[in-house]
């Protein structure tokens, strides 16, 4: 037999079989995540399934992140329902304001190399940056996993993504990740894992790797995995006492396809309405007027993202353009607190930014600022589907934190490298 990919290794360990691409395996999950958007339905399925208890209350976490804070009486009721269920079964609730599920479990050291993470949120794939097999499911698979601790999975084929070429100054991980999902297309990685390789991987911090893993689902990916290295160890060192060996793919592993992302040839990118796969160089979108800039989400709501944005805003004179609303939503409370301690949020607020509760925020129109009719939004998020932010007449563009900040300075889509 040929060697194995990271997915094959993790799913072998979790199923107790020699799992190969194409096999159907029943796996034991290490961590099962629900959100306030998916858990109310999951609780219904749990009851219909005759669920009596959670398979392991310590491995089930509920996050109140989509309606943070509740934007309607009904969403407040969803929260109470989830709290009551979690309390009855002894599971942890990540309360309103704690942050986005997959961000919080990562920063709390709950995801380790070799883990299988099941989350009822498509962006659970973000956790793959920690050398885990992390994948999104719906509410009924979540309910079954809550009861049994198990998930059946078809072992995915793997696409090898090689990050090569010297990264130019001013090229964000978001730019490269947008270029990657544009090349793959909206279903180019459907049912498959993206496994990241190449000499440049080491140049990306964990916060940047999360961006690649996160956006992978916009190409349909089931998982998006970076093998653990020294940077992973550093990230996990002060987050958990547990030490886990890296899961690496074998040199003779079989890949369904290989793509090369040559960083040296890339420049800042922007995804245009209404698809995250519709990506053009930012220089081809210059001058597009924007009325709202959104810094946040599980793609662009981490500490370095806001530092990059603040740097551009300061280089641009420290002033937000007239007619532009700048909405700032840290992905988690930890991010919020670090940005408070280092003064970033104070500076952004004094420039006129609106700082909102950590969580999913305005990303999917479930809480936070909804754009007005006909508005153009530039966002650090991952999806720009029509009506995604709650208004079908708004046009959403996606870009890096730096490019978003540049637009906040000028009032139009701007190459961040030209600011200051």
């Amino acid at each position, binding site marked *: 037999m040929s060697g194995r990919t990271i997915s094959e290794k993790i799913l072998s*360990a979790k199923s107790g079989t020699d799992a190969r691409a194409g096999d159907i395996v029943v796996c034991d999950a290490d961590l099962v995540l629900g959100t306030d958007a998916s858990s109310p339905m999951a609780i219904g399925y749990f009851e219909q399934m005759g669920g009596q208890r959670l398979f392991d209350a310590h491995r089930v976490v509920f996050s109140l992140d989509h309606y943070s804070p509740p934007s*309607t009486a009904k969403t407040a009721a969803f929260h109470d329902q989830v709290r009551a269920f979690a309390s009855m079964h002894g599971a942890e609730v990540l309360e309103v304001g704690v942050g986005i599920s997959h961000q919080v479990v990562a920063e709390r050291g709950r995801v380790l190399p070799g883990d299988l993470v099941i989350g009822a949120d*498509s962006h659970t794939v973000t956790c793959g940056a920690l050398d885990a097999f992390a994948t999104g499911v*719906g509410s*009924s698979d979540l309910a079954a996993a809550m009861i049994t601790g198990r998930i059946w999975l078809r072992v995915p084929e793997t696409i090898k993504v090689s990050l090569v070429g010297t990264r130019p100054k001013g090229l964000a991980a978001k730019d490269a990740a947008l270029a990657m999902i544009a090349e793959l297309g909206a279903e180019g990685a459907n049912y498959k894992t993206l496994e990241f390789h190449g000499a440049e991987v080491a140049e990306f911090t964990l916060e940047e790797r999360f961006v690649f893993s996160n956006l992978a689902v916009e190409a349909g990916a089931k998982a998006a995995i970076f093998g653990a290295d020294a940077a992973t160890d550093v990230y996990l060192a002060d987050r958990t006492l547990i030490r886990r060996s890296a899961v690496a793919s074998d040199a003779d592993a079989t890949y369904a396809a290989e793509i090369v992302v040559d960083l040296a040839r890339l420049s800042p990118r922007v995804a245009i309405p209404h698809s995250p796969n519709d990506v053009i160089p930012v220089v081809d979108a210059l001058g597009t007027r924007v009325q709202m800039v959104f810094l946040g989400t599980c793609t662009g709501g981490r500490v370095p993202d806001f530092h990059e944005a603040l740097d551009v805003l300061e280089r641009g004179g420290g002033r937000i353009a007239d007619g532009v609303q700048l909405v700032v939503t840290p992905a988690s409370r930890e991010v919020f607190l670090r940005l408070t301690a280092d003064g970033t949020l104070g500076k952004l607020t004094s420039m006129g930014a609106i700082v909102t509760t950590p969580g999913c925020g305005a990303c999917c129109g479930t809480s936070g600022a909804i754009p007005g009719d006909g508005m153009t939004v530039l966002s650090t998020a991952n999806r720009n*589907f029509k009506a995604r932010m709650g208004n*079908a007449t708004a046009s959403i563009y996606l870009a890096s934190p730096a490019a978003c900040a540049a637009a906040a300075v000028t009032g139009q889509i701007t190459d961040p490298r030209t600011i200051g």
Partner: protein
Amino acid sequence: MQLRIEGRARVVGDDINTDYIIASTRKRDTLDEQILKRYLLETVDPKFAASVQPGDLLVAGANFGCGSAMEIAATVILAAGITAVLATSFSRTFYRNAINNGLIPVECETNSIAEGDRLVVSLDGNALTVENSTHGARLAAKPISPMMTHILDAGGIVEFTRRGGWDLYVRRAGTRT
């Protein structure tokens, strides 16, 4: 499982994401599919929901159900009286959610199907066939995988789990570290 579904084709395009099937903002007020079905595919066509008749079949292009994994996208389609979706491809999360709730996902070439065509979808075991009665054409469809056939045969993931289906498919107890 044996099933024969006859209905009218309701054609939509490629990359219909789950937010288009039902907008996340609608879920802030209710999760009652009987109410949410009024907003089915409203972003694609605000008049669509009102024009749906129970028994209609949804026909899409590539990558149906991409984006959010929200399961209500599958259950709202069922609530509208649509029991099968035909598409050239499905996103993996939508496909799972469909099977788990007994909505039949039919992966077949859909380019030849026009709005209003009479279609017959037949499921026999795990084999799916599609006939376009309007054009007298027969379309090859991808069979449903064995695991998903078991779930479908049970009537969905709820019954599958109630009946202890999981234990039947574990080859060996997993090793947890």
